[in-house]
């Protein structure tokens, strides 16, 4: 493999890893802080992708407008979902959480089918980002993929700032440790958790939104990303956003280079890596903290 192909594959892996990270960070927040196993997280990704399709076919003119409207809309949907469904799950068994959130997958798939049908849909890459950067006479790299990486990095930076440097972030971290104490200091923990959930939803939907032009928009797309997101969360250490970043990169590189080096076993390579990591560190790379 020459150096240019290596560069291309590395960029692909980084881009994939960053998208995975955003997906998994929402999942790990909801899992780590609220202790809810959210099987519908993949559906949130799907909702984001269909939102991109819906919004870009006539409602919003430009990509920034689409993203802005999509983010606001998804925060709002997440907020309502927590209020109506997830708020009832905190005191429940994992089995009940799995049942409800699996039920939600079916509901979301049905709604998708009613609203958008069952065909594979495409979202056009915005014109300004449609080009490619030539690397050699025959190889080039699509600008949109670089845009995805940049957008994910910005999101990750904002998330880091929010959790580490704002009062809301302090409350969230405190709440993940001791719910009662946070309430006893006068903080509305129900509202706080609703906001965390809405943020998690927003991160998943955002990944779906910006991935849509790259991956096409299709039924079942949420289920494909769900399992790999759980793999990232488990490898990274449940509840650890930093761990999710490292794990997402490990998985993305394993996936991209696995397909290249051992194509025959590409499907299982990622899980092999997971098994090895968990043998080495059963609690994940980063323990929750």
């Amino acid at each position, binding site marked *: 493999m020459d150096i240019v192909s290596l560069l291309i594959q590395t960029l692909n892996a980084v881009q994939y890893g960053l998208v995975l990270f955003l997906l998994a960070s929402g999942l790990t927040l909801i899992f780590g802080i609220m202790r809810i196993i959210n099987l519908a997280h993949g559906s949130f990704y799907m909702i984001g992708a269909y939102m991109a399709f819906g919004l870009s076919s006539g409602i919003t003119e430009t990509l920034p407008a689409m993203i802005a409207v999509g983010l606001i809309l998804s925060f709002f949907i997440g907020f309502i979902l927590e209020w109506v469904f997830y708020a009832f799950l905190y005191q429940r068994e994992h089995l009940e959480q799995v049942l409800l959130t699996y039920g939600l997958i079916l509901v979301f798939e049905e709604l998708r089918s009613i609203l958008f049908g069952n065909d594979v849909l495409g979202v056009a890459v915005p014109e300004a980002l449609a080009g490619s950067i030539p690397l050699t006479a025959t190889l080039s790299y699509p600008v949109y993929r670089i845009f995805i990486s940049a957008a994910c990095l910005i999101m990750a930076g904002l998330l880091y700032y929010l959790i580490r440097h704002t009062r809301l972030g302090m409350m969230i971290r405190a709440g993940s440790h001791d719910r009662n*104490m946070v309430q006893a200091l006068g903080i509305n923990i129900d509202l706080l958790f609703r906001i965390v959930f809405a943020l998690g939803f927003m991160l998943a939907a955002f990944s779906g939104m910006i991935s849509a032009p790259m991956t096409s928009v299709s039924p079942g797309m949420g289920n494909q990303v769900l399992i790999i997101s759980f793999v990232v969360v488990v490898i990274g250490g449940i509840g650890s956003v930093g761990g999710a970043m490292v794990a997402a990169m490990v998985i993305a590189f394993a996936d991209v280079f696995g397909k290249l080096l051992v194509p025959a076993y590409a499907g299982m390579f990622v899980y092999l890596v997971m098994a090895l990591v968990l043998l080495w560190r059963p609690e994940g790379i980063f323990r929750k*903290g």
Partner: protein
Amino acid sequence: MPDALLETASLHTYYGTSHVLRGIDFKIQPGETVALMGRNGMGKSTLLKTMLGLVRPRLGHVRIWGKDMTRASTHKIVRQGIGYVPEGRGIFPNLSVRENLVMASRSGPDGGGHWTLQRVLETFPRLQERIGNGGWQLSGGEQQMLAIGRALMTNPELLILDEATEGLAPAIAKEIWRIVREIRDTGIATIIVDKNFAALLPLVDRSVILVKGEVVYDGPAKDLNAQRDFVHQHLGV
């Protein structure tokens, strides 16, 4: 008589089938300092938690400023002006000292805000030295100072201190008592639970003694000095 700052009326609290509070009538006026006493397991912490809505009573009422708050959520109850320092301190180990303080900061129920980060740090110079440390790195005494400082950041009218000096070395305990006196002198009402009666009694206006979830004494702290047998029987000293 004006409304009490906080009042409980025939409060009954259970843990499952175990009947822990058996009809507690308790009252504290603004600016008053009350010792809540009793042997281990008599229900002191449970009474405090029931006041705050962290444990729910089966019967009876909790009123704050005359308003029934028995079923109100905990955050609404404490926003009436209560700062809580729990047994075990409840420090967030995953937050720094500064973050433990800042996350709790709010103005008092009347919109007043005398307790700022700066004033808390002036009151607890030890915390200033540890400001960047994680909560998990603090000694017991430092944790207690942080817990009290954090409660003050909410600008309370009433400070609730469960086990003020438990497990602390005598010198540190003395420091805590000095601070409690200082806080009392600013006019904040306090409910204090502690096993060190010799240090506690001179500090308070009134004592309340619990035995098996019932109030057996409620009166001036100094009257207890004359009732050695009674005190020995119920407090074991």
